[in-house]
């Protein structure tokens, strides 16, 4: 990883007690755990319902909803191993982005090897400032994570993103043969467009 990304997550290494670590707990058979982190707590409920509805292969999918990291220490023992962490950023509110930036610092660096994904909503809205989107893209590119865009106002949009997240979750949890989270990450991680392409995109 580039040195700047280490600066983003490096600060958290001193706090070992409240940090979420990917491999500390043992996995359960045929089970996958997803953690959705969203400041507004709106989209995550709908997504959770749809993900569980769309699970057809008989795996035991569990979804945990949080507002921000770090997670409360009380539930540490009962919490299962988290396979995929999704940060939901709503471009229409400043707080959303700020909360995600704070939460990232509480995540163990090992998570960023295929177990983290960013989900952005509200990118279509014309009144949204382009700076926020650029910040999220830079963050995702720096951390080498996939960046998904979601349409959260229609039910089809939410279903689409739920199905995508479900397939990513299964790969990250090792339920898909011949595919691992790290492989998927190398294929799907966010790439910052070069300056020329950027000008074309933003004009």
């Amino acid at each position, binding site marked *: 990883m580039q040195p700047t990304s280490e600066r983003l997550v490096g600060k958290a290494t001193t706090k070992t007690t409240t940090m979420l670590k990917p491999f500390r707990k043992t996995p359960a058979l045929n089970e996958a755990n997803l953690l959705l982190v969203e400041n*507004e707590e709106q989209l995550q*409920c709908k997504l*959770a*319902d749809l993900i569980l509805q769309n699970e057809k292969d008989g795996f035991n999918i*569990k979804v*945990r*909803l949080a507002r921000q990291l770090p997670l*409360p220490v009380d539930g540490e023992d009962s919490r299962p191993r988290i396979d995929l962490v999704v940060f939901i950023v709503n471009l229409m509110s400043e707080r959303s982005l700020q909360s995600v930036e704070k939460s990232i610092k509480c995540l163990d660096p090992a998570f960023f090897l295929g177990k983290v994904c960013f989900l952005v909503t509200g990118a279509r809205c014309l009144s949204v400032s382009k700076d926020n989107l650029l910040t999220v893209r830079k963050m995702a590119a720096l951390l080498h994570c996939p960046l998904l865009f979601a349409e959260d106002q229609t039910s089809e949009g939410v279903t689409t993103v739920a199905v995508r997240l479900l397939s990513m979750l299964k790969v990250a949890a090792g339920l898909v043969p011949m595919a691992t989270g790290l492989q998927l990450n190398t294929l799907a991680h966010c790439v910052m467009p070069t300056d020329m392409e950027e000008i074309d995109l933003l004009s």
Partner: protein
Amino acid sequence: MDPTVRKLLVRILRKIPTGKLEETLKKWTHLSRNQQQSLDYSQPKWSLHENIVSLCQENGLTMRHVSELEMIYCMETPKLTTWRACHLTGAEDDASSVELICFKEQFKAHLSELIRNVSIKIKKHDDESVWMRIAWGDTFSKPNHLKPTYVVHYLQTPYVFICNLSSKNKPLLFQALVFATRHAAIKDANLSGRSFHAIRDLLMGHYNKTFPTNHSRPLKERNHLPTHPNIVKEHMEQAEKRHQVACETFGEGDVPKLETATYMLETRFRGGGGCAEDRQLKTVVTFESKSLLESLRYSATSGMADSTISPLLSSITQKGRNHFVITDKRDKGPDKAAQSLMS
């Protein structure tokens, strides 16, 4: 028909929406059943109103009847003008046993003594409240029925709600009220708004209140449980605590639809920027919303506001007012709460 009566009748008919017109006329009972059935409500409004006016003319109705129609409509849907709440203080011993008939007689008698030409109409509503319609005149002119004052009083409580009262007639009305309800004085309750029901519910506490409890997980049915057992909310406890505190302060479920809250700050300006320290800066902070209490409660439950709700906001429900004046206590230093509001 007297032209003033006709004018008033036409004005009232215009105000009442056609959907409600039929039942209002039925309640009025001054048009016979045949006459009511002869009205065709699918006609254009102006012709329907003309028919009603001609029927009233046939029946020979006077100002008294027409004002009754207005009152019936107003009692059903309180007018969207500003209602003010007032507090009666200094109850005498027999204040809690004032009855409707006694109150009516005393009020009418006293007010007619104070001002010669006044027309008073008193009606009792289903929910035990007394509605009064007062048309003011003075020594030389007849009562003006086009600008009546409406007063609502709940017997045996110290609350009075008034709308459309001019400052000229205010002392007269207050004196009559104080006398008829056997209290010593009446003062403004600092609560006003456009929705009568909201003001009444807030002041009289007619909404679901949550009481503080030491129990750590109060009634689980209230909280939104996730729909599927596989979904777990990490911050459930903190969310519940926030919800509990917010409900304790602002009420639960349907809260009165208060629309504004105004804070007049008469404190010293404490900002930087080279301003002199003891400059008085008068500021007015107004919160406006379709349902203010609901939005304040949401901002507390969703964590947007601080976890300890400022006493400035909680006094809206606790004291039942929506107009506050905040001043500095000069000897004790600036008001800290006002500080935080200004920053």
